[in-house]
């Protein structure tokens, strides 16, 4: 397998995780029993649906034969990827329906829950045994953390003032979890088998990895700890950092095929 940045997958996963994050954060913001739908809720949810739709279109560019894309749901019996297609289409339908039908609490939580499951399915797709370092729960963890970070940060742009403190705390938590996760994982890999170790070293040697850590996680965390609000430029940094980190995920996670002939 030839290592590749897999940019279509990078954008698909980031944008779809952003959309899911946004719906999750909307659900959390409006979780209180007496909370009404936000004034711009309908618009928000059309945008969330739009982002998800766009991410799905981007995912088509990954295919050698995009016109054959409908075939991708044919292997529901064993392929997580077929389920991923199905659940994301369902998710889009739910987001659009939520927007169209007036952003009711029931639909919001149904969509948020579906989004959560979609992240899990996505994690299963990208954790085959051929990548020892991520043949585990890490992809799901990476995706979940990224979704919450992007969702919370981006929500800060348009969320009502009184929800900003909540968003800020969620973001602090997610960034802290993210820092822990993305710093510890490569270190743990260093004491695994050879391919796992190579992955750890590749991540730690990658400037993009450090860009994600520093610009996408550490600096934002420091900024919002120091200032008591989420600055409007922060989501851009979060997005840029997440982009770097996602490229590293696809490019620098080492495949077992690289080490055939060497001790495993």
């Amino acid at each position, binding site marked *: 397998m030839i290592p590749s940045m897999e940019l279509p997958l990078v954008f698909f996963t980031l944008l779809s995780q952003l959309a899911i994050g946004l719906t999750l954060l909307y659900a959390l913001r409006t979780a209180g029993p007496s909370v009404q739908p936000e004034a711009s809720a309908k618009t928000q949810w059309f945008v969330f649906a739009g982002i998800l739709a766009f991410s799905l279109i981007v995912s088509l560019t*990954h295919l050698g034969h995009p016109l054959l894309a409908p*075939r991708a749901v044919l*292997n529901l019996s064993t392929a997580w990827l077929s389920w991923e297609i199905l659940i994301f289409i369902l998710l889009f339908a739910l987001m659009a329906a939520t927007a169209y039908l007036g952003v009711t609490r029931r639909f919001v939580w149904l969509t948020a829950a579906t989004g959560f499951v979609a992240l899990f399915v996505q994690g299963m797709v990208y954790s085959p045994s051929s*990548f020892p370092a991520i043949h585990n729960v890490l992809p799901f963890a990476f995706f979940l953390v990224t979704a919450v970070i992007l969702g919370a940060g981006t929500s800060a742009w348009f969320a009502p003032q009184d929800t900003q403190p909540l968003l800020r705390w969620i973001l602090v938590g997610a960034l802290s979890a993210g820092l822990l996760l993305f710093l510890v994982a490569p270190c743990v890999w260093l004491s695994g088998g050879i391919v796992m170790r190579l992955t750890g070293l590749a991540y730690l040697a990658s400037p993009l990895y450090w860009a994600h850590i520093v610009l996408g996680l550490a600096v934002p965390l420091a900024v919002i700890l120091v200032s008591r609000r989420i600055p409007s430029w922060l989501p851009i940094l979060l997005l840029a950092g997440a982009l770097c980190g996602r490229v590293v995920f696809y490019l620098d996670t080492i495949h077992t095929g690289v080490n055939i*002939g*060497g001790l495993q």
Partner: protein
Amino acid sequence: MKKQLGFYVDAKRCIGCFACAMACKNQYHQASGVVWRQVYPLKEEIYPHHERAFYSLSCNHCEHPVCMEVCPASAYTKREQDGVVMHHQERCIGCGNCVRSCPYGAPRFNPVTERAEKCSLCWQRLDAGIDPACVKSCPTNALRLINLATFNEPNAVQFPPGYPHMSRLNPSTRFRQPELPKIIKPEDQQ
């Protein structure tokens, strides 16, 4: 056990000549850079000389092929009569999932057709009663076609060092390990 074809890689006889790898190219004319059979040198941590022992590997035609498992378009099937794992070009959407998921790197992405492709165990030749192209070409009979149902080679192993240990897939390739000669060097180079 029902018939399951596979390759016997006799690394003791194998001289790493690449005739098998090129025989495959000769038969299928794969696009430049697309290689179905690769001859992997064993690293010195396994065979203590630089590029002097090899595993010739194509597809392992596993009992539980991960390519077939993860393909969303059901473009892979496993033949009943002999266990050959086949990729059907016309069903492939070029998502690359099999390429990423096979721990042995058997499926390759063809940038010209924009589809995956891999060793087909020369099933068209098999059906006509002739050996796979790679097996036929091996000058030392180090690469052989075997039927796991009847294969009985006491020295053969399934997971030699240097070959990813994926028991769940149950690859059909079997190996004999290479050997070392006695080495006489000048005293100052022992």
